[in-house]
């Protein structure tokens, strides 16, 4: 393999790792900071990806898509004639909004109840979304899937250079989301979320409306996941319901957060690169070791190793340290004869 081939491979790897890092950030808002047990990431993944794809894809070819009536066309039907590249960003925003709306509905129903109900609901939604797109052919071509999802700036950039552009797009969006999440969780808003994670009763007794904050966290995290789904759609450019199986769209993201460090945004991003590195790297192993089952086993081994050796993940939770005031030191010295 020559050098440019290696670089191309690494670029493709970085794009996927960064897309997964977006999901890990969203899950970090849910689980790492608020303690919301979302085991249906795949649902938001799929909703985000399909929303972006349906809004930007070219009109379906009637010869190939006899049942498919909705698909993609808002960008191409003159409804809002901005060109497909502006629709890329509208698709991103719409993916976030759709996921946020679904999270608002599920959250309003389940977040007042015991924690377990949210988990069950997220799991249920993930499967419902998958089966909806599988069975309702009119919506997104059923099991045959959506393809020809357009590239961002596809008219300008040569096909062989698309990944070089897209790695920058993914990086910029990841950085923006990272900054937004980081700012939010290190502010009083994030402090309330972490308090809820630690003890809801104390948080309520400190005057915070626990339900409202949990709902905000759930919606915010889901919107981030929606953006991740949209980024995925324009990278892979083919979607079918099979893409969103619980293994690669939920479990792997949990593994990333656990490995990197729950409650630490840098850890979430690092975990995405490490776990995706293991998943992608093991395909080069010889013989039976490159089987998907073995590769998955390796992720399991890494989780167990991390849990045993560094239970907080590679990067533990960040802790705010304040300088103690000179005055307090003086008081302490005067009261402590030792």
């Amino acid at each position, binding site marked *: 393999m020559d050098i440019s081939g290696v670089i191309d491979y690494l670029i493709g790897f970085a794009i996927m790792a960064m897309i997964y890092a977006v999901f890990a950030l969203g899950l970090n808002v849910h689980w790492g900071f608020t303690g919301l047990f979302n085991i249906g990431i795949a649902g938001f993944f799929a909703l985000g990806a399909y929303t972006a794809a349906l809004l930007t894809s070219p009109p379906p070819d009637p010869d190939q898509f006899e049942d498919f009536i909705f698909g993609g066309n808002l960008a191409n039907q003159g409804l809002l004639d901005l060109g497909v590249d502006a629709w890329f960003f509208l698709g991103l925003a719409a993916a976030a909004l759709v996921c946020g709306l679904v999270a608002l509905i599920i959250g309003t129903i389940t977040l007042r109840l015991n924690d377990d109900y949210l988990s069950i609901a997220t799991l249920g939604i993930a499967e419902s979304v998958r089966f909806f797109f599988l069975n309702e052919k009119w919506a997104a071509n059923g099991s045959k899937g959506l393809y020809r999802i357009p590239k961002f700036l596809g008219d300008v950039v040569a096909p062989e250079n698309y990944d070089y552009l897209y790695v920058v797009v993914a990086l910029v969006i990841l950085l923006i989301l990272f900054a937004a999440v980081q700012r939010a969780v290190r502010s009083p*808003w994030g402090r*309330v979320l972490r308090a809820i994670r630690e003890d809801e*009763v*104390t948080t309520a007794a400190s005057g915070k409306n626990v339900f409202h904050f949990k709902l905000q966290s759930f919606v915010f995290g889901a919107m981030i996941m929606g953006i991740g789904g949209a980024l995925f759609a324009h990278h892979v450019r083919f979607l079918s319901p099979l893409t969103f199986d619980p293994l690669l769209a939920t479990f792997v993201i949990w593994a990333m957060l656990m490995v990197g460090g729950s*409650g630490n945004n840098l850890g979430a991003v690092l975990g995405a690169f490490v776990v995706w590195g293991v998943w992608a790297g093991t395909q080069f192993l010889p013989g039976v070791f490159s089987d998907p089952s073995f590769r998955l086993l390796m992720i399991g081994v890494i989780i167990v190793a991390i849990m045993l050796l560094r239970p907080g993940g590679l990067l533990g939770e960040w802790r705010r340290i*304040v300088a*103690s005031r000179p005055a307090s030191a003086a008081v302490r010295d005067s009261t402590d004869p030792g």
Partner: protein
Amino acid sequence: MKNSPPILQVRNVTKDFGGVRAVDRCTLSVTPGTITGLIGPNGAGKTTLFNLVSGALAPTSGRILFEGQVISGLRPHQTFARGLIRTFQIPRELKRMTVLENLMLVPARQSGERLWSTWLTPWNVAREERRIQAQALDVLELVNLAHLANELAGNLSGGQKKLLELARTLMADPKMVLLDEPGAGINRTLLRDLSTNIVRASVERNVTFLIIEHDMRFVMTMCDPVIVMANGSVISEGTPSAIQRDPQVLEAYLGGRISGPA
């Protein structure tokens, strides 16, 4: 002061847990500005009454009024907003947050609690954070925990966690504080400091206290009046010295009759 209308009124409140009646047609009132003691044998319903007043539980029947307005049925964050704050008998500190953060959580209406403010007006949030942090450090010095400001609250000793519970109430600027056994597990010297702080808050900031406590020396020197509960209802109320002479109280504490059909 004695003639002012009660700040807290509990009217004929009952709370059932399945077949167990934890609070039984309980009626009491607390005069503003007082440090009122609430004593009674184990299982008398004192902590359940705190849970009812603070909104952690809703009464099965009866009404609770705070400053003349019905608060029974409100949720805990709503009673907090009215100016009522409570501590927990078994400390419920936020374990994986620092001692300082445990306190900085408490002040109400922080602009940084709005998600969009953290992005759009970070300078306002930062200014407010500096003010709240300074206030929290002051409170920590008051309860002798300043040297532990950066420690995770889960690593504190039992007594230090009790102090942190008290410190939380000092962050809130409340009208009334419900303290559930503040003295348990705290050494004598610290208990004296704690009493001083309670009296100071009561006098200087006109905060009303309702205190559950088993340490009789603490109750008899700090509290006036003292309310005695047994079997879910109030059996006596009066000055500490009057309570100590009340035969009903002695009976309840020294193993008297069993009420109801045996």
